[in-house]
């Protein structure tokens, strides 16, 4: 069952990811990215990380991608797409080389992954991945990161405001 679900979703995700980087239009890329993120949420569910799956959808697909779309619209990027890589022939060679490099890296990583002898997974309790479990450890063992993350968001907020404000006083 897991197999049946995993491989199609995995394939889809990879395809969508490729779609992101191969699409000429930024809006198309964004769409593909949303799709990929939703697919990943499925994979998280498959791994019983329900909480994270939900967050994935809410934060990523919901918030972050909306922000992307917003900016794309704001900047009205359609016109500039033609200047992108596909229209430039002279960079084709470099692109191929880069792709070769990427494939090389991939090959190496996968090679290493399969080098590791991984035991079969542990027996999972039912509570694995639930909001309660994750929340508990988030507010006990990982309370500090949780708090620090708030500082991070604060900093990001200030920064975004400072930079994006149309006019500084």
């Amino acid at each position, binding site marked *: *069952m897991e*197999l*049946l679900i*995993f491989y199609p979703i*995995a394939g889809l995700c*990879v395809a969508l990811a*490729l779609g*992101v*980087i191969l*699409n000429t239009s*930024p809006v198309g*890329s*964004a769409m593909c*990215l949303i799709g990929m*993120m939703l697919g*990943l949420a499925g*994979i*998280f569910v498959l*791994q019983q*990380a329900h909480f*994270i799956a939900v967050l*994935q959808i809410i934060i*990523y697909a919901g*918030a*972050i991608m909306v*922000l*992307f779309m*917003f*900016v794309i619209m*704001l*900047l009205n*990027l359609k016109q*500039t797409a033609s*200047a*992108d*890589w596909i229209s430039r022939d002279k960079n084709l060679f470099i692109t191929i080389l*880069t*792709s070769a490099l*990427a494939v090389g890296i*991939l090959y190496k*990583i996968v090679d290493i*992954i*399969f080098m590791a002898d*991984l035991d079969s*997974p542990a027996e999972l*309790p039912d509570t694995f*991945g639930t909001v309660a479990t*994750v929340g508990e450890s*988030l507010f006990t063992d*990982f309370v500090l990161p949780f708090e620090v*993350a708030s500082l*991070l*968001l604060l*900093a*990001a907020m200030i*920064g*975004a405001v*400072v*930079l*994006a404000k149309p006019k500084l006083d």
Partner: protein
Amino acid sequence: MFEGTVPLAHYLTLSAVLFVIGIAGVLVRRNVIVVFMSIEIMLNAVNISLIAFDHYLNLSNGQIFSFMVMCVAAAEVSVGLAIIIALHRNKPTVNLDEFNLLKW
């Protein structure tokens, strides 16, 4: 026929594939937004590994981690997009190759 679980290695492989696609995106694209999206792909790819390891080890650290990653991603996106907007104000383009004042 489709019994059994997906081995960890396959999750990791998926993660790796997406990660490398992200890298490739950064390397070949010139549109700032798309490059940025590629980076998001990379972060997402890592999340797969994190969850897979959690699943495999029966721990929750990975989930916390991925939660933090999402936080960070959100923060980065907000700042990053703000930068892009600020940039666009001075130079209405998103082609990375045109940001080439600083070199050598």
